[in-house]
């Protein structure tokens, strides 16, 4: 059988390639549910035998599930470091899961919109991801999948505390719902910081998705619920949705205001970013992400008409280190990566014209 990673990488990532509501600002919606097997130690405290048993139990249940047709099944120990890094960059697995492949496995649907990590921090971490802002649709998808396997696997559950998880921050619904937003307008208007503070006050978490430090690379951020106990899933989702809708409005206002008051500055930012991407021969990850963000803004606002939005979206993924090395076919030093990245971006933007 052909390596599942090689098959996956040929796919366009569906949550980036499809159109979704509000997908000019909301890039994707993801919901993750954490579950554990009843009367079984959590992975952190479990023996290898227990871990292997839970992989098998989840695999069998998924095979019977009607919500998951012909998925890829990957034993994490069979994969190389690079292959695991690719899965991480495609947001199919967590960083932790990618560096600690002890008796763990991954199940991925054909279009990557549904995946299950087995033996991460919890026995089961299932996620559904769609493009745009579609919280209720994504919830419907993961909810049905969860129900389809819960017929076969008894979960660790307590009448008062709900689904029991290894970390008490996830107990109850075990749900983390998050929306990835692209906010270049608010960033240009210097309004991101007050926004983040406001969101934190509402009990929601904000984080940049690519940058680890203080930089909010690519003007991308992810907003998610923090509390998992004391509210139903739908309540959590509706609260999140309300806040997201407001942020989208703020971003739209910021964009139209920029167009009104500093049109040339805006066009200059977009034009320079496009030029940089189109004609560079060496480009760092940071420079690429920030330029891609401006290009995306230009495409969204109709300033740049020759580039397809999905090409820009895809480049956000493809310009990351592991994808570049897979593209190049060998391991690369940082300097080599910056060259290959520039090549790839030039090629993709040329094809698009």
């Amino acid at each position, binding site marked *: 059988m052909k390596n599942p990673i090689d098959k996956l990488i040929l796919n366009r990532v569906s949550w980036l390639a499809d*159109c979704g509501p509000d997908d000019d600002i909301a890039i994707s919606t993801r919901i993750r549910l954490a579950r554990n097997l009843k009367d*079984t130690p959590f992975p952190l405290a479990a023996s290898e035998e227990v871990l292997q048993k839970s992989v098998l139990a989840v695999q069998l249940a998924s095979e019977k599930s009607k919500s998951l047709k012909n998925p890829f099944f990957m034993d994490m120990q069979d994969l190389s470091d690079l292959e695991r890094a690719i899965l991480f960059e495609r947001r199919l697995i967590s960083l932790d899961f990618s560096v600690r492949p002890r008796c763990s496995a991954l199940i991925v649907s054909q279009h990557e919109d549904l995946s299950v990590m087995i033996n991460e921090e919890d026995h089961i971490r299932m996620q559904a991801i769609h493009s745009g802002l579609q919280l209720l649709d994504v919830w419907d998808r993961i*909810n049905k999948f969860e*129900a389809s396997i819960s017929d076969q696997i008894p979960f660790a559950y*307590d009448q008062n505390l709900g689904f029991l998880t290894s970390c*008490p921050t996830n107990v109850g619904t075990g749900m983390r719902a998050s929306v990835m937003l692209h906010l270049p307008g608010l960033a240009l208007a210097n309004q991101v910081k007050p926004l983040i503070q406001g969101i934190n006050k509402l009990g929601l978490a904000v*984080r940049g998705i690519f940058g680890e430090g203080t930089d909010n690379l690519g003007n991308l951020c992810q907003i998610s619920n923090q509390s998992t106990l004391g509210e*139903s899933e*739908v309540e959590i989702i*509706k609260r999140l949705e309300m806040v997201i809708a407001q942020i989208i409005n703020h971003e739209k206002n910021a964009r139209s205001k920029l167009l009104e008051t500093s049109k040339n500055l805006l066009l200059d930012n977009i034009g320079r970013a496009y030029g940089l991407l189109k004609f560079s021969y060496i480009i760092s990850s940071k420079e690429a992400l920030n330029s891609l963000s401006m290009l995306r803004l230009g495409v969204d606002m109709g300033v740049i008409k020759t580039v397809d939005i999905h090409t820009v979206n895809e480049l956000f993924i493809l310009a990351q280190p592991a994808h570049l090395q897979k593209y190049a076919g060998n391991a690369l030093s940082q300097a080599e990566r910056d060259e290959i990245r520039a090549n790839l971006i030039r090629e993709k933007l040329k094809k698009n014209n």
Partner: protein
Amino acid sequence: MICDICNINEATIHVQELKNGKKKTLNICPHCASEHSLAEKEINGFNLAEILYNISSQMIKNGEEGEGGPAILNPDFVSDDVAHLKCSCGWDTVKFRETGRLGCPECYKTFAILLRDALKSMHKGTFHMGKQPGTIVDTNGQIATKILSLQKELEVSVQKEDYEKAAELRDLINSLRSENTTKAATRKTKKITTQKTKKKNG
């Protein structure tokens, strides 16, 4: 304790991490914490550290406040009865403190004393209000909303120690929940017949 990042403000958040088997602690002020968008893997640990700090202040309530930072880092200040809890799975207070994680479902009972206040500060409430195993919660959220308002009442009556009313409400909630399950089942069969004509929106 001064913040490790800005070296100016008082550090109130203490992030613990295990690196190469060694415990490292990062002490930061709320300002720097919000400044630094913490990566995904750190988020849980971050919340947790804050909460563990609360636990620790709970622990030293009986003792004296001393030097050496929060009690969580200083076993001397942990009161005896909670310092030596041990679950049948092998997990103990030390492991819980080091990792912020529990070892098994039973641990929720074993470490209930430590968890009670922690859960309160982490979450909106202390009762599970979401789906139950093997049920499909109604996606539109009508029943969920009704259940939710009942559960809010339930929480109030528990606070008022009106356990009679609480029991009544719990029964009502459970019956709504089972109604929800049967509704989901009938909707499921209905959906199959209409699936062919249904078009994907967007």
